[in-house]
């Protein structure tokens, strides 16, 4: 299938990572953060000081205790960090540097039944890598998905290039897909671009769809909408290509090896490159050899959807990039830098700034300033230009704000996730925090309707 996404926006940010692969220094500490998983209530399975190996369960989902989350390293449980109301923020593990595995026996999964494979993936701790739509949370093992989606490219600003990361990784990738195929008993859709790497173009056992177009064409939400739209009551699973590789590695070796490649980009970091690291590594270890400028914000994930982390924080489990951008906590005088400036150096999707007249190759400086204040919805038709769904975004958001579940369902809440609204939030004249609103709406739907 060939798909052209017409609506959208490529944001040309300064600080795109160079295609240089290097090894991050080994982290001394690793963390598992329940906040990486929306809607999860964790139940601890260890206590501080316990000895753990790679693959030892740390906590499980309180309401679905087969879904467990395991340690990416061997060593000791260092700290259980709690926040308000004793909510668990993170469990940190101090690594002994040996990466001793709990399990080391590979199996021949091609002969295993779906149920056996499922229970193996659950006990191995790899299950959380499989996420589902609707709601955009960890897949429910009891569901049977109608298809599985893998997007082989990321169109976010400063995003990692999977063609570069996964070059020559066909064995692991195909092994991962084979497991997913058994697990889902449904078609696996792999979205590629015309010039994708051979690892994707020659992938086996998948339906390949060629996608063209600007961001968010790399988001699975958009791809699902175009290829196999979700209806109420249906479920689709999706997996990041590197996570497919981690699952494949498990299939080939039987070990829990959460190493992956992330990219580090953004204007305020000296070395913009790709780094081999391990899920849950400390930001310190990743950025050790680079200089972070003063007054910077470190984001685990993309500048459009990621999460703020401190230098002593940890990489998010679903994140494959770190972005370091300037904080915008300064006042901007209206004539030279603010709302009435000519604005040749300011990026805007609206034609009220001259961005659209300047060459497309120009890259722009971005900071975290809101560039305005929160206002009521005034401008119409703005989100629609960057939102490639057959859904009315403003009306859906208003139905969420008013907690109108029936309207949310009618307007298509089952097809979207917060990241699909990231561009709407970006372009919003009224500076409304749309992704947060959508997340709240999805949480409500999950509580009331699933």
């Amino acid at each position, binding site marked *: 299938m060939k798909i052209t996404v017409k609506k959208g926006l490529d944001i040309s940010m300064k600080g795109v990572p160079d295609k240089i692969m290097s090894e991050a220094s080994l982290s001394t500490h690793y963390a598992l953060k329940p906040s990486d998983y929306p809607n999860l209530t964790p139940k601890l399975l260890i206590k501080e000081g316990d000895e753990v190996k790679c693959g030892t369960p740390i906590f499980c989902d309180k309401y679905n205790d087969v879904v467990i989350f395991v340690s990416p390293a061997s060593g000791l449980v260092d700290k259980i960090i709690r926040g308000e109301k004793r909510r668990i923020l993170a469990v940190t593990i101090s690594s002994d540097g040996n990466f001793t595995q709990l399990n080391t026996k590979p199996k021949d999964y091609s002969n295993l039944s779906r149920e056996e494979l499922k229970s193996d993936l659950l006990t191995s701790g790899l299950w959380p890598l499989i996420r589902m739509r609707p709601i955009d949370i960890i897949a429910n093992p009891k569901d049977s998905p109608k298809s599985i989606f893998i997007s082989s490219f990321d169109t976010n600003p400063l995003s990692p290039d999977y063609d570069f990361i996964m070059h020559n990784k066909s064995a692991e990738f195909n092994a991962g897909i084979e497991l997913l195929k058994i697990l889902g008993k449904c078609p696996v859709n792999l979205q590629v671009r015309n010039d994708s790497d051979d690892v994707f173009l020659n992938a086996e056992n998948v339906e390949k769809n060629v996608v063209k177009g600007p961001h968010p064409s790399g988001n699975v939400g958009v791809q699902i909408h175009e290829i196999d739209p979700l209806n109420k009551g249906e479920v689709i699973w999706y997996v990041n290509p590197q996570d497919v590789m981690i699952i494949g590695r498990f299939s080939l070796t039987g070990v829990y090896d959460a190493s992956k490649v992330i990219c580090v980009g953004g204007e305020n970091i000296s070395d913009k490159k790709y780094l081999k690291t391990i899920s849950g590594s400390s930001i310190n270890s990743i950025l050790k050899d680079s200089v972070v400028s003063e007054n910077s914000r470190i984001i685990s994930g993309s500048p459009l959807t990621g999460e703020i982390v401190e230098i002593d924080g940890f990489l998010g489990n679903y994140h494959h990039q770190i972005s370091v951008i300037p904080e915008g906590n300064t006042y901007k005088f209206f004539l030279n830098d603010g709302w009435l400036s000519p604005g040749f150096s300011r990026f805007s999707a609206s034609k*009220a700034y001259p961005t659209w007249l300047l060459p497309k190759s120009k890259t722009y400086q971005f900071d975290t*300033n809101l560039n305005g204040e929160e206002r009521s919805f*005034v401008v119409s038709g703005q989100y629609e230009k960057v939102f490639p769904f*057959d859904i009315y975004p403003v*009306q859906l958001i208003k139905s969420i704000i008013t907690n109108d579940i029936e309207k949310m369902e009618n*307007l298509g809440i089952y097809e979207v996730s917060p990241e699909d609204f990231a*561009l709407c939030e*970006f*372009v919003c004249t009224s*500076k409304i925090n749309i992704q947060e609103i959508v997340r709240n709406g999805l949480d409500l739907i999950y509580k009331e309707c699933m």
Partner: protein
Amino acid sequence: MKFLRNIFDSAHKTLNSSEKTKKFFPLIDAFDTLMFTPNHVTSNGSHVRDAIDLKRTMMLVIIALVPCLLFGIYNTGYQHFRVLGELDNVSFWEIALKGAFVVLPLVVVSYAAGLFVEFIFAIKNGHTVQEGFLVSGMLIPLCMPADVPLWMVAVATIFAVVIGKEVFGGTGMNILNVALTARAFLFFAHPTKMSGNEVWVTGFSKMKADGLVDSSSGATALGDLASFMQDTPALENTQAFQAKYSFMDSFLGFIPGSVGETSALMCLIGAALLLWTGIASWRVIFSFFLGGFLMATILNLVGGNGYFELPAIHQLMIGGFMFGMVFMATDPVTAAHTNAGKFVYGFLGGFLGILIRMVNPAYPEGIMLAILIANVFAPLIDHVVIQSNINRRLKRLKTV
């Protein structure tokens, strides 16, 4: 810059120092944010944001209104001296100055009254002042007759902001266009100051009292046209009308009318800027024009009197059609919000505008009423558009 920043910082500090003065923060905040984009940063979600904000959006609309304002000032003076028959004796600057003395007070009063109400509501409700009124405040004087008493402008503005906007929840929540609400209020509350032959040319009542002019010389093009529908038309036939108000004069705007509405050319310049910057919806403007043109053409074909026989394109150049189309109908809050709905909404506005204007000559300014009606229908139009989207989704569910 640093100096200014320090002033604002210390002003904030003074206000924040006591509970009593704290609630007055919108007063300082409004001017502070006008001079400086605040240091607010994003939280999680989209960490970077587009440079656009509501201030720039509104400012571009005001810039688009400047040609209409400047021409309105000139034309106000021009009509005054034209009626007096002194056009040949006065210089450009005398004309402009005469107009400025009449129009600028209208602008000042409109802004003062409207912002006063906005600040009161902001302080009372503890929120910042939103930018919506910056545009309304300019639109109100431009859609008034030059000689409207200033107190009426103030009352109408206060009425429009309170009843038209704040009772619905403020900027972004209103159903009716604020500026047109102000105009409609005066139109029905004080018809003698908003319609007829004696309000459009500044100083006209005095001239008449002095016996310098008779009342027919102060008529607007629409007034003369509407008289075709009465027993004693002011003009013999369409040709006589076209001789008095040539197409060129109507297009350029050298005819009596509300302050900013007379020049189609200036409206088009404004429209060009609004469309070029993507602020106004081309869908609304296009379909509004189409609707008006179609209705005017239909009545053209019906014919039978001097009014209906005026060529459609000339019909659209007089009165508030162009001004309403470019600046009133395109108000994003009160227009339809869906792209498909905008076509229907615009068409409805243009179509009804000409219909009301021509078929019910008691309301020669049909455009105002038509846009207000279209505003009321906009949510319904959106509802139908969205319902079809919902049905499409339900149908997909059924076929699975």
